[in-house]
C-alpha cells in the first residue's frame, strides 16, 4: 500500500484578522472619505477641463502645462520651498540647543519653560503674524522712514515663519531628549568623552530621528502657508499658498488642484530624502 502524504492544511487565523479588521473599520472608512476621495477628486480636477456639466468633461494636462510654462509660478514654487527650508533650519538651530538645555533642568523648570515656549501655539496664528508685521512696521518707520520697508523681504517672512512654527520643532526634539537615558551621558564621560564628544557621539545620533520629525513639522506647513505671505509678504511675495488661493477664488479648480499636486510631489520627495537620512530609526523603535 502506498501511503500518500496527507495534505497539510494551512490554518489561517482568520478570526483574529477579522476582529482587527472590524476594530479598524471606522478608521478605514475615515481614511477613505477624508483622504482617498479628496485625492481622487483632486486628481480628477487636475487632469480635466473646467466645465459646468459632467458631459463636457475631457481629459487634459493643460493645467500642468499652464503651471510649468509660466516662469513666475515655478519661481514662486522654488521660493516657497527655499523660504520654508531656511526657516526650518533656523528653527532647528534655535530649538536643538534649547531642547538639550531644557532636558537637563529640573522637572518643574522644564515644564514651565516648555509651556512658555509653546505658548504661541495657543494664540491664533493670524494674530501672531499680525504682531510680527507690526514689529517690522515699527522698525521700518523708525529706521527707514517707511513703515513697509521691511515687509516682503526674506527677513520678514523667515522671521514670521520661525516665530510661528518654533514650537513644532521644539516639542518633538524636547520630548525625545527628555526621554534619553541620562546614564548614557555618564557612561560616555566615564569612557573619556568630554562634553562636546558626548553631544556629538551620543546625544545627536540618538536624537536624530526627532530632529527629522521636527524638521518636517516645520517645513511642510511653512511651505504652504497663506497667513505669513498675506501679512508679512505684504502682497509682494507670491508663494505657492497664494497661487492656490488665487486659483480657487477665481474658480479655476483644475488649475489649483494641479498646483497642489505638484507641491505634494515635491514635498513627498523631501520627506523621502529626510527619511533616508534617518538611519537611527531603530533607536526610536526600541523605545516602549
Amino acid at each position: 500500500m502506498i501511503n500518500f502524504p496527507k495534505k497539510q492544511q494551512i490554518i489561517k487565523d482568520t478570526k483574529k484578522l477579522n476582529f482587527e479588521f472590524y476594530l479598524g473599520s471606522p478608521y478605514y472608512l475615515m481614511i477613505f472619505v477624508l483622504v482617498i476621495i479628496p485625492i481622487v477628486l483632486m486628481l480628477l480636477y487636475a487632469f480635466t477641463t473646467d466645465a459646468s456639466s459632467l458631459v463636457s468633461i475631457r481629459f487634459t494636462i493643460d493645467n500642468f502645462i499652464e503651471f510649468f510654462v509660466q516662469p513666475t509660478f515655478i519661481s514662486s514654487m522654488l521660493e516657497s520651498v527655499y523660504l520654508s527650508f531656511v526657516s526650518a533650519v533656523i528653527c532647528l538651530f534655535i530649538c536643538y540647543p534649547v531642547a538639550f538645555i531644557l532636558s537637563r533642568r529640573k522637572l518643574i523648570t522644564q515644564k514651565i519653560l516648555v509651556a512658555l515656549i509653546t505658548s504661541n501655539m495657543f494664540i491664533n496664528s493670524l494674530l501672531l503674524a499680525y504682531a510680527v508685521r507690526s514689529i517690522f512696521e515699527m522698525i521700518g518707520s523708525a529706521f527707514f522712514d517707511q513703515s513697509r520697508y521691511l515687509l516682503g523681504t526674506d527677513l520678514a517672512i523667515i522671521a514670521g515663519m520661525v516665530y510661528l512654527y518654533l514650537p513644532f520643532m521644539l516639542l518633538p526634539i524636547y520630548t525625545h531628549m527628555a526621554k534619553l537615558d541620562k546614564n548614557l551621558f555618564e557612561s560616555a564621560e566615564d569612557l573619556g568623552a568630554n562634553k562636546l564628544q558626548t553631544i556629538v557621539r551620543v546625544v545627536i545620533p540618538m536624537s536624530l530621528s526627532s530632529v527629522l520629525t521636527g524638521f518636517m513639522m516645520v517645513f511642510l506647513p511653512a511651505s504652504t502657508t497663506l497667513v505669513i505671505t498675506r501679512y508679512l509678504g505684504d502682497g509682494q511675495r507670491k508663494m505657492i499658498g497664494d497661487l492656490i488661493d488665487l486659483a480657487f477664488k477665481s474658480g479655476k479648480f483644475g488649475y489649483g488642484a494641479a498646483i497642489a499636486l505638484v507641491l505634494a510631489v515635491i514635498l513627498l520627495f523631501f520627506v523621502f530624502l529626510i527619511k533616508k537620512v534617518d538611519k537611527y530609526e531603530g533607536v526610536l523603535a526600541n523605545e516602549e
Partner: protein
Amino acid sequence: MYINSKLISTYMTLYFTMSKHVNRKESIMAFIELKDVTKEFNNQVVLRGIDLEIKSNEFVTLLGPSGCGKTTTLRIIGGFIEPTGGEVLFDGVDILKLPAYKRPTNTVFQRYSLFPHLNVYENVAFGLRVKDQNRDAKKQIEVLKETYKKDCEALQYKVNHDRSNSEVLKLEVKEQKAALKVKLKEAIEVVKTTFVSKKKYEYIIEEKVSKYLKMVGLDGYEDRSISKLSGGQMQRVAIARALINEPKVLLLDEPLAALDLKLRQEMQYELKEIQRSAGITFIFVTHDQEEALTMSDKIVVMNKGEIQQIGTPVDIYNEPINRFVANFIGESNIVSGIMKKDFLVSFDGYDFECVDKGFDTDQVVDVVLRPEDLDIVELGQGKISGIVDSVIFKGVHFEIDVKTKDRIYTVHTTDFKPEGMSVDLDWYPEDIHVMEVW
C-alpha cells in the same frame, strides 16, 4: 592644567613599572586614598568621614545594605559626584578637580548603560574613538616648542643686556635663533612621523576590540545590536567597554545584580580572573555578602554612611567588629554577655571559656556564635540544653532552631533532628567571638 599633566606623567611611569614587573614596593603603597570624605544631599548626610586606602591590584568590595553610601563612594571615586568635604588621592595626587573623563577610572554601571544606537563593536570601541590617538605625540611637540621659546628668550636676554650693543653679537644671535628654528622644525617632523594615521588607528581599534571581546567571550558578536543581547551578554559588553581603555581602576557598581544565580557565579569567577590577569584595581560595590566573600581581597563593610569594618573576607567573617557586621555577613546568633576576665565570658547564666582577651573586667559585650559552629549533641553532653523548635531543609544543610531557656539558637547541621527532641548545644572555645558593644 598643571595637576593634570603631572598626574598623567605619574600614571605613565607607574603604569610601566607596574605592567612590566610588579614592583613590590609599589604594590604595597596605597594607590587610592579617601581621606575624611563626606557627602550631604539636601542637608542629609550620606557619607560621614570615609577613610579608605586601596592598594593597586587589589580587589576591594564595598559591602552594605542599600542606602549605606557604597554607590555614592564609588561615584565620588569615578568623578560623577563631588563630595561635600574631604580628599580623594590617586598616587598622592588630589583628583577631585579632575572631571570624570580625565580620571584613570572606568566604570561598569549597574544597568550597563550601553549605547543603544551602536552595535557591540562600536560600544566597545567607544573609549578608543573619543581618544586622540596622537595625544602623546602632540604633547611632545608642545614640549619642544616650549624649550625652543626658552632658548630663544635666553639668547634674546644676551642681546638685551649687551652693554656694547655690538652688531656682531646681534647677528650671531640671529643666526643661532634661525638654527634653533630649523632644529625645532626637524624635531617636530620626526615626532610627526610617529603620528598614527586614521587608517592605522582604525586597525588598532579593530585589533583591541576583538581582543577584549574575546576576553569576555563575545567574539563573533561584533555586529549584534545591543537590544538583541541577553543580560549576561550586555554585562560582558559593559566590562569589555570599560576595560578597553586600560584603566588603572575599574569601578563596578553592582554589575551582577541583574543576573540569575548560575550566571552570576560564573561571572564572579570570570571577573576575578580578569582582575588577576589584567592587573587592575577593582572596586566592586555589592549588597550580596556571599559575592563579596567569594571575590574580594578586601571587604569594606559600610552602614549608614560610615565604614564599619575593613578587612579580608576571613577576618570580616570570623572577627566581626560589631553586631551589624556580624548580622550582615553571614547568619549569627548574637547574645549579649559579660566578659568576666580574659578568656572567660558569661552569658545565658553560665561561664564559658573563649579565646578573646583585652576587655575590661565585667565589661558588657556581644557574643557571636555562628550557626555552622554550633553542634547538636545528645542531652547532657553539651554546654546548653534546649528543645528542637523547628527544622528547615536548606539543601546543603538543615537549619534547626533550638529553644533554650533564654533564647532560640539557630544551628546549621547536616544531621537531621526531629522537632521536639531535647538536645544539648556544644561548641569549641574558639567558636565564640566576643565584640565590644557599639
